């Protein structure tokens, strides 16, 4: 008695055990439920010792790594997206030394520092023995972008006159000249 809605998993034909994924044909013990798209190949196929199947597994893993790297790049570039917004905020807050401009400038320093401290946790989930080497580059970009944000803060400080770059800033540390003669 055959039923359209019933599958007998004990006596499956080869045809029924065929499973196609990403243009590859796999023979599995049981076909996945209809509509299921497997990202991880079934273990049974490898247990069968099928060479062809083994060859099939590697591209899948590579895929995962590329994906991870891609995601890592996304994460690395995300601080960059904030830069225009920060720049706009800085521009809006003006060059006066006021509570808001100082707070915003302060944030520009504290956020990158916080982010740099937590850089490992940001990239942790993209990490695997294979990707470890490759993650250096997104990390460097991430650091660079955070530094850029800080540079923005520095620029803000300098335009507010908070950076000791001019001679006047060192005036207070200057020793008065020692007077050689005395007079009354």
């Amino acid at each position, binding site marked *: 008695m055959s039923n359209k809605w019933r599958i007998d998993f004990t006596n499956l034909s080869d045809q029924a055990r065929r499973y196609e994924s990403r243009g590859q044909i796999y023979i599995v013990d049981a076909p996945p439920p209809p509509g299921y798209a497997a990202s991880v190949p079934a273990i049974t196929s490898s247990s069968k010792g099928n060479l062809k199947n083994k060859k099939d597994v590697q591209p899948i893993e590579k895929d995962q790594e590329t994906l991870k790297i891609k995601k890592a790049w996304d994460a690395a570039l995300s601080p960059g997206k904030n830069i225009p917004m920060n720049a706009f905020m800085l521009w809006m807050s003006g060059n006066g*030394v*006021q*509570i808001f401009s*100082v707070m915003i400038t302060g944030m520009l320093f504290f956020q990158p520092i916080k982010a740099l401290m937590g850089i490992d946790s940001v990239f942790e989930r993209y990490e695997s023995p294979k990707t470890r080497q490759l993650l250096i580059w997104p990390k460097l970009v991430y650091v660079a972008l955070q530094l850029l944000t800080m540079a923005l803060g520095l620029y803000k400080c300098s335009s507010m*006159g*908070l*950076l*000791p*770059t*001019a*001679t*006047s*800033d060192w*005036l*207070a540390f*200057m*020793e*008065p*000249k*020692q*007077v*050689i*003669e*005395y*007079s*009354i």
Partner: protein
Amino acid sequence: MRRLLAPRIFAFVILTLTLFVELVSSLYANQAGVIDWHHQYIGTPKVSFFHKFVSRGAYVLIASDRNVLASINVRSGNIDWRQVFDENENILAFKGYENTAISVSQRDNDYIVRSWESHSGFMLWENRIKNVRIDKNSNPIIENDAPGVDVIFAANNLGILILLEGSTVINLNVTDGSQMWRSDLTDSSTIFYKLVEFKEKAYGVGLKKSFSSYTIEVITYDITNGISKLQSLNSKVGNIKDMIVLGGSIQDGFIIWNEGGFIRVNRLGTLVIEQSSLEELYENVIPSFANANGKLALLDLNLGSRTEFLVEVPTKEGNTAAVFKVDSESGRLVALYDLEEKSENSLYSATFDKNSRLIISRSRVVAEDVAKVDIIAPGTGLVLGNYEIPYSLNSYGDLKKTVLDVDSKATGYRMLVTSADGSIHFWKDHDMVWKSEESLAHTIEAEFLDLPERKLWTQEVDELAEQPEESETISPLARYIRRVKTHIEQLKDFPAYLTAYVQRFIIGDHEAELRFTDKSKFSLHRDTFGFRKLLIFVTRTKLVALDTINKGQIIWSRYFGNDVFEFNKIFIVRSSTVKYPPLVVAIGIQRDSKGKIVTRLFRLNALTGENFIPTENEKYFPSELSLPIITKRILKLPVEEPDERTHIIALIDEELKFHIYPNHENAVKAFIQFAPSFYFTLSDDIGEKSLKGYKVVKNNVQPFDITEVWILNFPEGESIAAIGRRPQNEKIASLGRVLGDRSVLYKYLNPHLVAIATLSTSKTPATLNIYLIDIVKGSILHHATHENVGYLHPIRIAQIENSIVYHFWSENYNEKGYVAVVYELYESEIKDQRFESPVFSSFAHERPYVSAQAYMFPYGINAIGVTITKHGIATREFLFALDTDQVFGVSKRFLDPRRPQRVLTNEDKEEMLIPYDPAIPDNKKWVLSYHLPVAGIRQIITSPALLESTTLVLAYGLDLWFTREAPSKTFDVLSEDFSKGTLLATIFGLILGILITKPMVRRKKVNARWY
């Protein structure tokens, strides 16, 4: 400065503070007199009398040697009214009549007669009398300071007869001052002294020089038309003091003089001379005169028309006196009363009571702190009272003058007393009712003295003073135990401290702890903010120390009149330290027994006024010293002697010898080390025509020789009009000035720079020259000339840091008015450029760049002062003593040569510059002294408080006025109206809220877990 990192953050902190603190920009009415105090003075009385008119009660009218007329309320001692004359207008005579008082003053060659309404001080009229013969050389016999000036009222004729310069008599209408007649005497050999008027005639009594003595001359005027007749009396008078003139008005006038062995009496208008033999007087009439051993003196009691007078005779046991009277019927001398008591310094004054009974007072100081007054009615021979009054001889010196007044029944007395130091005291019966420290009207110099910190517990002081080597000998445990003991001891003061703290917190008044009511609690120590200091004044013969708080109460005063003729300098030679008291040295001159001038030095403990005698170095460290030299200049050297850590004082005498004080071995050693790099100037006084620089020669023997290093002769006709030196206690916060683009102009800070203004008056209007001179090498670093300067207005110049401000009157046709000019000196005109060197030497040949700007100034001034703050960060303020008797503060931001004469650029705004305006605004909010009339300011001195924002300011001259000024507002203190209560209430409210809600929230959380 502004661009610095630290000030920026500082500014930010300030800004956040301003959210909570309301800054006060000017004074509110209820703040007047809270931090400032004003002492009004009049000077030492030349003429003083009780003036009574109808129902207005009695008051004392005074004309003083500081050219002030004043009316003083006898009950309170307050000045009812005061008229301050110009410094060069001397008051010669002052007399009251009914509701007017007439003053005669002299200005240049003119005499000015003014009539004043005596109870209000309003002037009724003024008459300037010109062309009076002034013949100063022919007045050898006059010793009083009003040469031949007398004023009398001719009651029946509504006239005032005034004798001027011993030669001119004028009759002025009492109601409007118009001249009725005038008579000038041409004979210059006669000088008239007194006027008497009676029976429609006026008599002038004078002395005419004959061979060895003087002859009495009498001139008689017809009072209605001034027709005169001169008569000579057959007489020989040795001295003006041997003659007195009495009577007049309602009775006849008499001349009494001492000639040979007789007292002679002449009734004015006749040539009859009555005489009484002195011999008889001495032996029979007055018993106490029996042992007379000197010349008798006739004392006028100034009783108006009365004819009583006093004869004083020196005896071996002291002076004695007797009261005499000229009997107006017979014209003979009558002895009234023998005052008997013999003492050196008795002063007499007299008045009469309601029944025309003569009352005489005899006053003298009988002990260090007691004065005695006897009240006698000579007519009846009754002694009405003996009174003892507390009086400090050490503070005021002897009595100099007394003016007596009695009430209608003569049951008591009151008396105005002038003491040798110039102060006024008012005595009533056994009490001193009030006194006025008028010696301060003659202040020569004043200094601020920092007070020591509140004495720490002595053990701690000892611990602090311990040398490190000494500490090492004690075991650490012992030291620790000692420290803990000290702290436990100090814990005893904790409850008192706590209550004081709470009290202060509630009142919000930091001075509360210093306002003492109980004298025993009072000790001299610094307050938290350093607002409390001592002001040490040196007057002609006195030192006075005032407290800057407590309304300028006198802490100590000491009279030196017996040791010093006149003081010229005072120096603080040692400031307060933990262990040693602060010391001052006062220097004055005195004539020794041979009449030679000697210089006297006194070294005093500045907290008590007592001579300071060190415990160890007494022998070679005398606290009083007399040097047989006349000093040209006295300097406080910036070097200390090692024994007592006092600054060495240098005295340069007329023979150009250089003496140092103290002069013990170690001091000399310290000085010799310092001498090679020491330069000083002489002849740097107002009016000098050249300036000379000197240096001490290395000869290692005292007194040192000095050698002239340079001389600077000002061009022909120029003489020094004003000198501006940098204050020695100034503090400089920054070496440069920060511009808008954050670059720096480096300040030219030459400690040897002296700004000198000279006036050339050879042609009018005069020319003003400003020289900036380096006094080490005598070179002129900058020279400026102002043409058309009015020389009658004073020129004043002040220097602080790298800026110089001077003020003069410009006669230029397009800018006639007062001008203030400001200089700022920089090392270079170019930004960020300086003379690179770790040392400053005058010989380095560095010339400053001078930027200058001039402004029209709204007022004439008498002095310039500058605020000095602890670190010099707060904006400076120039304080001008205006000729309107006010103190006017102008911020340095307005007197700034960098004020741009264009539309402000961003950089200018960044530098916070104010656009140039040719006039300094006459902003009434800048008047620090608000409505107070601070008369006769000669000098304004300042001293920093412990708060950076605040300066202590003292203006002195005639009046004293003290205040605290915060030129950049009080940014470092919470304002008084900061509501601490609200703050506290908020905090407590929040705590309470937390306490209430905490269990509620917890319960709710627990409940939330259940469901």
